[in-house]
C-alpha cells in the first residue's frame, strides 16, 4: 500500500511524533510511505497528531488513521502488517 504521512504542526506534542513514525516505517516496511499532499493518491493516510485536539486536516476522500500516542502507533503497525502482501 502507499501510505501518506501527515503531521500536525506539533505545538503541544505529548509524545515523540517523529520517533513514532520512524517505528511505523521500520516495522511495517512492506508498505511505501510518502509525505501527504493535498490531491495525492494514497491507499491510507496516517495523521500524526501531537495531542487530543487533532487539528491536522487531510482531504475527506482518504482512508485516515489517526495516531495520537505511542500506543496508537503500535496498533497502526499491527493493522498495516496485517495488510502486508
Amino acid at each position: 500500500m502507499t501510505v501518506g504521512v501527515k503531521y500536525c504542526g506539533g505545538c503541544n506534542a505529548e509524545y515523540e511524533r517523529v520517533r513514532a513514525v520512524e517505528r511505523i516505517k521500520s516495522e511495517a516496511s512492506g508498505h511505501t510511505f510518502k509525505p501527504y499532499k493535498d490531491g495525492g493518491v494514497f491507499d491510507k493516510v496516517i495523521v500524526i497528531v501531537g495531542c487530543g485536539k487533532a487539528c491536522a486536516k487531510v482531504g475527506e476522500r482518504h482512508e485516515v488513521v489517526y495516531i495520537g500516542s505511542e500506543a496508537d502507533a503500535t496498533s497502526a503497525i499491527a493493522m498495516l502488517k496485517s495488510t502486508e502482501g
Partner: protein
Amino acid sequence: MGVMTRAQYIESLEKLNMKVYMFGELVDKPTEHPIIVPSMNSLAMTYALAEKAEHQDLMLAKSTLNGETINRFNYLHQSSEDLIKKIKMQRLLGQKTGACFQRCVGMDAANAMFNTTFEMDEKHGTDYHEKFTKYWRYIQQKDYTVDGAMTDPKGDRSLPPTKQIDPDMYLRIVERRDDGIVVRGAKMHQTGMVNSHEVLVMPTIAMREEDKDYAVSFAVPSDANGILMIYGRQSCDTRKMEDNADVDLGNCKFGGHEVVVIFDDVFVPNERIFMNGETEFAGMLVERFAGYHRSSYGGCKVGVGDVLIGAAALAAEYNGVPKASHIKDKLIEMVHLNETLYSCGIACSAEGSKTKAGNYIIDMLLANICKQNVTRFPYEIARLAEDIAGGLMVTMPSDKDFKDEKLGKYLEKYLKGADGVPVEHRQRILRLIENISLGTAAVGYRTESMHGAGSPQAQRIMISRQSNMDMKKALAKNIAGIIELTQ
C-alpha cells in the same frame, strides 16, 4: 523560491551590506558576531522548522498572491483557522527558542498594510494596495524577513509631531521628488532588524491634517543607503563574548535583539510608498497593526512560558522538592496563567473577521485583552519561577570556577542538590531561569511583554472604546426594571 532553507537564509543575510554599530564600532560581519548570532539562530528557526515535515502544517501556507507554498510568516491570513494556526506557530517557535524569534512584527505589519491600503485606495483613488500587493508578492517569493518599524522616538510625549522642538522626533518626509520621497528620522526598539532583509515603515500614532509629512509608510531594503542601526544592550549580553561561553548563558543558542534604526535622508522610490500624507488612515494602520501584534503575544510569550515552566519544574526536582504541595500548586498556577494567555490568543483569532481587502483580522477587543494580560502574567510566571528556583539562580559562581582545579571541588560538593542529579544540570537550569527572567531573554519575556505592541494604557484605551458600554447599561436597566420616560 517560496521557501528558503535555514542555510540559504543565513547566506542571504551575509550578502547584505548593513551598517550595524555596537559599542561604538561598525560590526564587520553581523552574522558572525557572538552577541548577534543567537538572535540570528532564533530567526533562522522560522526557516529551519519550515523544512521539517513534522512542523509544516503550521509553518507553511499556500500564497493567495502567487499560488506557491510559502512560509506562514509571510502569509496573508484567509480565515479564522489561519489566525489560529499563526498563534500555534508562534507558540511552537517560542518553545523551540526560549527567546524572541523576531519575525512576527513584519507579518503583522504586512497584514495590516494589506487591508489598510485597500481602504485608502477606496477613499482616495490611490494605488497603494496594488503597489503593496506587488511588493508583498516579491517578499513571499523570496521568502524574505521583514522588520516592522512603527515606534518613533517621540521626544516630548505630550506634544504632536509638528509641535516637537526637533521636527525629526517622528519620521517624516523631507523631500518629495518625481521619482519618490526622501525620509528622515529614527525608529526605536526595532526587533530583529539586523536579521531582516527589508524594513516596512509605518507611522506610530494617529495623525492630524497638519501632520501630512509624518503620515508616511514605505518599505526599503535593510541595507539601503542612509540606514544605520545601533545595537541595543541587554542585561548580561557580554557573557556571550566570554571564552567557551555556554553554561553561564543559560541559553547559548538562541536570543533576540532590538536596535535603534536611523534613517538619514533615505530615498524611497514611488513603487515602495504605501502612504504619503493620508493622515486620516494613520490611526487605522496603527490600530490594525497593534491589534494583530497584540494577538501574536498570545502565542510567542506562551511558548517561552512553556520553557520557563519546564525549567522551574526541573529546578524543583533538582532541589529535591518536586512533591512539595506548594511547589506543585505554584507550577499549576504558572500553567494556568500561561494557558490563559494562550486562550486569549486563540479567542481573538477564532473571532477574527474578513476585511474589505479579503484577508482576516483578529477581534480587536479580545486582542487588546490578550495583550493587557501579557503585560502582567509573564511577570507573575517569572516571579513564581524565581520562588521555585531558589537564590542560587542569581548568586551562583561562574562556570569557570566550577571548572577550576582548586575551586571546582568545593562547588561540586556544596552546590549538589538531589541525589543522582549532576551539579552541571542544576547550573544549567538555574542559568536558563536567570536568562529568561532577568538576563538577555528577559528583554523579550518581560519588558517587551509590557511595552511591545504598545504600553498597557494603549490597550486600556482600546478596551474602553470597544467595550459596548451602552449595551451593558441597557442590560442592567432591563434586569433592574428601570423604565425611562421617553420625551
